[in-house]
C-alpha cells in the first residue's frame, strides 16, 4: 500500500443554478490580463451543449487523454514516442481561437466622444486582439440555457449514444431538459497534461495533488493543451507560456477554499482530502470502460481504517492531514455513499473532481403536462426519464447505465425519506422499500440530506493544513522554496516572463 493524499472536490449538480458567479470570481482574480482574455479556468456549461472550447469532449478530434493500445498499455492519445518530436512544431489537434472564441470589448469611449447629432451613439463591439470592429459569433458560454439549440445542444457529443427517438424527445418543448456543468481543472491523479510536457514544466504537487505549470520552465510547446481531454490547459499568447487553474493554491495553503468555491451561490462545491493507493492506480487506469468508475473507487482508501492511517503516516502524511481526510465531505460523496462520479472517466486521467449528477431534470418529466413525481412510477420510468440516463452515463460513467441509475435511486430515496418525515404523505413501508432498493440506511439518508442541504462552509470545505515547508524539504525546487522567494514580492514568477526565454 502506497498511500497518497489528494485535495479533491465534489460539485453537486442538483444545486447548480448556472449563475456563473464562480466563473466571474476566477476570471477577476486570475485571467483578467492581456494574453489571457479568452481563458476561463472556471466555466459553466449548459448540457446538452457543445461547451467551451466547442465540442471539447470529442477526442476523435482533439485527441486528449489516455487510451489503451493493443498491448493494453496506457498511452497518450495525442502523441506516440516517435511522433511527439514531429508534433512539437505543428499539432493540428490544437484548439484554435475559433474553437474558444474571439474575445471582444466595446468602443465605450464613443459614447463620450460622439459628435453632437440627432441620434444617440452606441458602443460597437471590437476585437480585444486586433482592436477592429467585429461580429460577435461565439463566446465562452455561447449555448447558455440551450441558446442556439439546433446548432449546439443537438451536437453535444454525449448524444451520440442516444437513439434518434430519444434525441427527438429531448428537444420537444414539452419534454426539453437541461442541466449545468461547472468545470475547472480536475487536478487528475493521472494527468495527461503532465505526461505530455516536453519541458517538464508541468508537475503535480506531492502533498496535495494540485497540478501546476512552472512558468519558468514552460517553453510554450502547448503539448499539454492537446493532451488535456478536458481542455483546461490554456496558452497565454502574450507571455508565450501555458496557464491553468491553480486551485487557488495561495488560498488553499492558508486554509481557505478556492475563489470559485468560496463564491458559489448554490453552495454546490465541496472540498476535502482523499487518500488513495498509488499501487492500485495502474490497474484502475487500465480497467475496461464499463468498470472504470468501480475501479477508480477502489483506488480510494478508507481514512478510518487503522492500517491505511498508519501507512499514510509512514508515507509522510501528517496526522492533521489524515484527520482532515477522515472528515472529508468528498470521501463521503465519492466512496461512502457512491453518489459522486468522475466526469468522463473514459479519458483515463482519474479526475479528482467528482460530480453528483442532477436528479431534477430527470424527474421533471412532463406527462400530459403534469410533472411526474410518483414513487412507484419513478423506478419503472427511470429509463424514460426526461434527461435520458444514457446521456448522464455518457458524461459520468463511460456509458455504464447501472452506475448512474444507482445514484439516481439513492437521490430519490433520500427525497422520499425526507418527504415522509416533513410532509408525512408517503407510506412508511414504501419509504423502507425505496431505501432498501437504493442500498441506503435511514442514517445514511439523513447524513446525505444534511451534507447536501444544510452543511455550512466548515463542513463543505474541510481544508487540510498544507505544510509547504515540509513538502519542499529535501526537494530541489529553488524557484518556489520560501528561502529563495523571501524578499521578492507577489505570487508566481520570480522573474519577468519573456517570450522564448
Amino acid at each position, binding site marked *: 500500500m502506497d498511500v497518497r493524499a489528494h485535495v479533491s472536490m465534489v460539485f453537486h449538480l442538483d444545486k447548480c443554478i448556472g449563475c456563473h458567479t464562480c466563473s466571474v470570481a476566477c476570471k477577476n482574480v486570475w485571467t483578467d490580463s492581456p494574453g489571457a482574455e479568452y481563458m476561463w479556468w472556471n466555466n459553466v456549461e449548459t448540457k446538452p451543449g457543445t461547451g467551451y472550447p466547442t465540442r471539447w469532449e470529442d477526442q476523435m478530434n482533439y485527441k486528449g487523454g489516455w487510451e489503451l493500445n493493443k498491448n493494453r498499455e496506457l498511452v497518450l492519445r495525442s502523441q506516440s514516442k516517435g511522433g511527439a518530436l514531429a508534433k512539437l512544431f505543428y499539432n493540428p489537434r490544437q484548439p484554435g481561437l475559433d474553437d474558444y472564441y474571439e474575445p471582444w470589448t466595446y468602443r465605450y469611449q464613443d459614447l463620450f466622444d460622439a459628435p453632437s447629432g440627432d441620434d444617440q451613439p452606441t458602443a460597437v463591439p471590437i476585437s480585444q486582439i486586433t482592436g477592429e470592429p467585429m461580429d460577435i459569433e461565439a463566446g465562452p458560454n455561447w449555448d447558455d440555457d440551450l441558446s442556439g439549440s439546433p446548432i449546439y445542444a443537438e451536437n453535444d457529443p454525449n448524444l451520440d449514444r442516444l437513439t434518434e427517438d430519444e434525441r427527438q424527445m429531448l428537444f420537444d*418543448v414539452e419534454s426539453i431538459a437541461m442541466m449545468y456543468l461547472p468545470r475547472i481543472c480536475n487536478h487528475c491523479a493521472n494527468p495527461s497534461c503532465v505526461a505530455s510536457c516536453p519541458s517538464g514544466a508541468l508537475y503535480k504537487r506531492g502533498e496535495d495533488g494540485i497540478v501546476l505549470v512552472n512558468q519558468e520552465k514552460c517553453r510554450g510547446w502547448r503539448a499539454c493543451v492537446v493532451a488535456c481531454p478536458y481542455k483546461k490547459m490554456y496558452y497565454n499568447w502574450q507571455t508565450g507560456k501555458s496557464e491553468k487553474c491553480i486551485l487557488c493554491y495561495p488560498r488553499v495553503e492558508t486554509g481557505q477554499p478556492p475563489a470559485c468555491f468560496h463564491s458559489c451561490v448554490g453552495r454546490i462545491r465541496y472540498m476535502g482530502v482523499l487518500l488513495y493507493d498509488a499501487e492500485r492506480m495502474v490497474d484502475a487506469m487500465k480497467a475496461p470502460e464499463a468498470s472504470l468508475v468501480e475501479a477508480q473507487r477502489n483506488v480510494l482508501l478508507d481514512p478510518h481504517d487503522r492500517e491505511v492511517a498508519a501507512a499514510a503516516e509512514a508515507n509522510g502524511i501528517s496526522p492533521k492531514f489524515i484527520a482532515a481526510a477522515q472528515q472529508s465531505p468528498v470521501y463521503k460523496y465519492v466512496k461512502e455513499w457512491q453518489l459522486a462520479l468522475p466526469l468522463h472517466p473514459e479519458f483515463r486521467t482519474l479526475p479528482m473532481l467528482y460530480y453528483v449528477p442532477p436528479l431534477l431534470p430527470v424527474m421533471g418529466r412532463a406527462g400530459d403536462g403534469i410533472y411526474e413525481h410518483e414513487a412507484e412510477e419513478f423506478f419503472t420510468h427511470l429509463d424514460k426519464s426526461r434527461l435520458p440516463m444514457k446521456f448522464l452515463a455518457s458524461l459520468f460513467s463511460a456509458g455504464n447505465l447501472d452506475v448512474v441509475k444507482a445514484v439516481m435511486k439513492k437521490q430519490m430515496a433520500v427525497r422520499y425519506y425526507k418527504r415522509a418525515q416533513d410532509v408525512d404523505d408517503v407510506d412508511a413501508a414504501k419509504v423502507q422499500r425505496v431505501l432498501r432498493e437504493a442500498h441506503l440506511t435511514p442514517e445514511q439518508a439523513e447524513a446525505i440530506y444534511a451534507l447536501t442541504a444544510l452543511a455550512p462552509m466548515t463542513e463543505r470545505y474541510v481544508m487540510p493544513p498544507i505544510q509547504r515547508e515540509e513538502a519542499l524539504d529535501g526537494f530541489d525546487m529553488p524557484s518556489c522554496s520560501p528561502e529563495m522567494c523571501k524578499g521578492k514580492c507577489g505570487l508566481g514568477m520570480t522573474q519577468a516572463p519573456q517570450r522564448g526565454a
Partner: protein
Amino acid sequence: MLPAATYYEKDDLNSTDLHTFIHPLQAAVPPCWEAKSDWQIFRDLAQVTSKLAEQYFTGPVKDILVTPLMHDTPAEIAQPHIRDWGKGECEPIPGKTMPNITVVERDFRKVYQKFISLGPNFRNKGLGIHGTTYQVDDLYDAYRKTHPVEFWEGGIYPSLREDRDVCEAILHFAAETNGECAWRAYQAESHKTGIDHTHLAADTRAVRISFKDIVTEPRRSLTTPFWTGVTNNGRTYSAYCQNVEELIPWRTQTGRQHLYLDHEAYRAFGEHLPTYKPRPDLRTTRDLDYTATDGGGLVLNYLTPHGKWHIHSTFGDTLRMETLSRGIEPAWMNDRDAGLLGIQDNDWVELLNDHGTVVTRACVSARIPRGICFIYHATERTVGTPKSRLRGGRRAGGHNSLTRARLKPLFMIGGYAQFTYAFNYWGPQGVNRDTFVVVRKIEKPEW
C-alpha cells in the same frame, strides 16, 4: 444629474423585505472623481439652499401640506362609496372625502442645520408605523451624550452630518436593531390588541446593534410588530406568523385574511373575488393595426422577462456579463418558428409593431414555446444597438420600444380599507406588458 457614489464607496445600510439581515455598505475606496454619497449630495444641496434662502427670506413662512388618507388610521373607512367632491358629488371634508390639509411652518434658511440634526419632533412625538408608536425621548437624551452632536441656536442635537452618523442613528432608534425599542413597540401593540405580546421582545431587550457590529458581520433584525414574521431563536422569517400565533389582526378591513373585496369598483369589474382572466389576444391589444404583417414576417407574442445577465439595467453593459451571454440582448425564439423565416441562430432580426422597432440578433432555441419571442428587460442602448431603416436610419429602440404600459383601471383604486395609502405598503402589481410583434430577418445591420 449628480454622480453618486457606488456600494463600495460609501457607508450605508442595506436590508430587504422578508430577508432579515441588516447589511452594511462600507467605503472600501473613496468615491471616484467627483462622486459623493447620496447623503452628502443632499447635505450639500441643503447647504446651498440655506445660503440662497438668506437672500430671499427674512424669517419662517407658512406652508400648506397635503397628506393622503392613510392606512392604519380611521380614514381607511371614511369613503365607503366612490364620490368625487371636485364634481360636487359630496362635500369636500379634509381627512374624510379629500386628503388631510395641514398648515406647517418652514424656515428655508435653516434647511441645512435641520438636515444635519436629529430634531425635537423625533424626540417628542415617538416613532411608529401601522398605527403603533413607541417613545424614544429618554433614548434620544442618552444618545446625545455618547454620539456626535450639532449645536445651533441654543439647541444640542444628535448629528446627522456624516453618512456614518445617519447609519448609527437609524440602527439606534429602529425597533429592528434596538431591543428596547422593539420591547416598547410590543407594549404599544399589546395595548391595542389587549393581548400581551412583549414576550416576543423580552429575551432581546438588551440588544443594541451598532454599525460596528454589522461591519463585523451582518446581524439579523429583531422581531417587531412592524413585520409579521417571528425570527426569535434563529427561526426563519415567514410572513404572517404573528397574525396566526399572536392573534394580531391582519391589516385588512375585517382584520382577517380577506379575499372578498366589497369595493364598488372591484364589483363593477367583476374582480371582487379572485378570478381567472384569459391572456390578451391581438384583437384586444391591437398592437399591429398600422404595421404590415405580410412580406415575410411572422407575428409572435412578445414578452420582456427578467434577464439572466443583469438586474434590470444594472450590469447589463459590463463586459463580463456581455461576454458570458451573447454580447447583445438577443430576441429568443423557437427553432421551428425561426425556420419558417429562414432565421438561423445569431442572425440579425428586426422586431416591429405599432409602437416601435428593435434590431438585434436572434437566439434560436427549442426551449422557447412556439408562437412567442422574448427579449430580457431592461438593457440600455449603450452597447451594440444598430440603426433601423424603419426609423429613417436612426438608432433602433430597446426592448420597451415595443411595449405599452396598459394601466388597469383597478390599479387606480385606493382610499378604502386595505387599499388605503401607506409608503411602500400596498401598491398595484406591475403593468402587464405582453404585446405582439412582427419578426423579420435582416441581412446586415447598419451602425
